[in-house]
């Protein structure tokens, strides 16, 4: 199950790497600045950016730290990350292919470990958090940013059913409370949190993942059906003739004791 899910993710992100690279939410500079600001960096940090993808967070962090290592399971995404870093003139980022549950570092090497908009793809969330915590130095910080679902269990499930139809490598958009609970389970102390929201156009969002046509139709129906009473917790609405919705996002910073 675990290996299968990861291979599905490699397939999905290999196939759609350019679409994800162009995603407005991923490249949102204000959001990236928020993450960088919350970390209050000194300039001498070693950073590991897990599931770095096309490297947006790695590139935002690089000017403020000693160096950043980006790790991702999908080689095609890293190729784009390397090109982008080169174009940006950033020479303190290195990338490697790897798996979050099996990080290739024996010592606690890192002052900061980050994972942005990727945690919902990890098939073993607690094992992943424990492994990220393992490579942190004492006092080092883990920062997770991700979409979160409603604290209402039924709404959370409704949202996650649609996400699975859209992207087979989706595991779960956790409730913010669940995410923090897991970070504590991994032995970390939550020290800081921030929240935000990101608006999406339904058709653009579908196009980015490009699911089978039958699934697209089911998602459209579920999105429309969720408007009455906000069944998905996504505040689905029609604006200028287009269906739009809002993802809630959470940034949680936790410290290793």
């Amino acid at each position, binding site marked *: 199950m675990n*290996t299968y899910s*990861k*291979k599905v993710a490699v397939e999905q992100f290999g196939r759609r790497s350019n679409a994800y690279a162009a995603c407005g939410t991923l490249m949102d500079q204000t959001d990236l600045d928020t993450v960088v600001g919350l970390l209050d960096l000194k300039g001498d940090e070693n950073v590991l950016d897990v599931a770095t993808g096309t490297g947006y967070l790695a590139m935002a962090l690089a000017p403020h730290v000693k*160096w950043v*290592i980006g*790790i991702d*399971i999908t*080689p095609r995404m*890293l190729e784009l990350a*390397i090109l982008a870093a080169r174009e940006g003139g950033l*020479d*303190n*980022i*290195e*990338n*490697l*292919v*790897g*798996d979050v549950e*099996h*990080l*290739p*570092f*024996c*010592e606690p*090497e890192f002052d900061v470990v980050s994972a942005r908009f990727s945690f919902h793809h990890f098939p073993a969330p607690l094992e992943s958090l424990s492994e990220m915590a393992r490579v942190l130095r004492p006092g080092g910080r883990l920062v997770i940013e991700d979409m979160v679902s409603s604290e209402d269990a039924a709404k959370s499930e409704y949202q996650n059913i649609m996400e699975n139809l859209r992207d087979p490598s989706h595991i779960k958009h956790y409730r913010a409370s669940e995410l923090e609970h897991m970070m504590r389970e991994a032995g970390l102390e939550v020290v800081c949190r921030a929240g935000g929201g990101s608006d999406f156009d339904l058709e653009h969002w579908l196009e980015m993942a490009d699911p089978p046509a039958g699934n697209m139709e089911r998602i459209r129906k579920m999105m429309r059906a969720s408007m009455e009473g906000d069944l998905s917790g996504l505040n689905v609405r029609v604006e200028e003739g287009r269906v739009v919705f809002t993802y809630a996002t959470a940034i949680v910073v936790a410290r290793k004791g």
Partner: protein
Amino acid sequence: MKTVKHELMEILCCPMCKSDLVLTVDEENDKEIISGSLFCDKCNEHYPIEDGIPNMLPPDLRE
């Protein structure tokens, strides 16, 4: 001054057993190792370096 690339090679270990690795360089320039491999003696496993990128995936996740 040591580059990030060199530091990275020094801290990489086997993703499975976390043992140290033996680096073999097939091709390099003044900045980086372009191709080669990292070998884990304990697991008897080679982790390839291709186009300058080490592939540290566990064997069952590698294609």
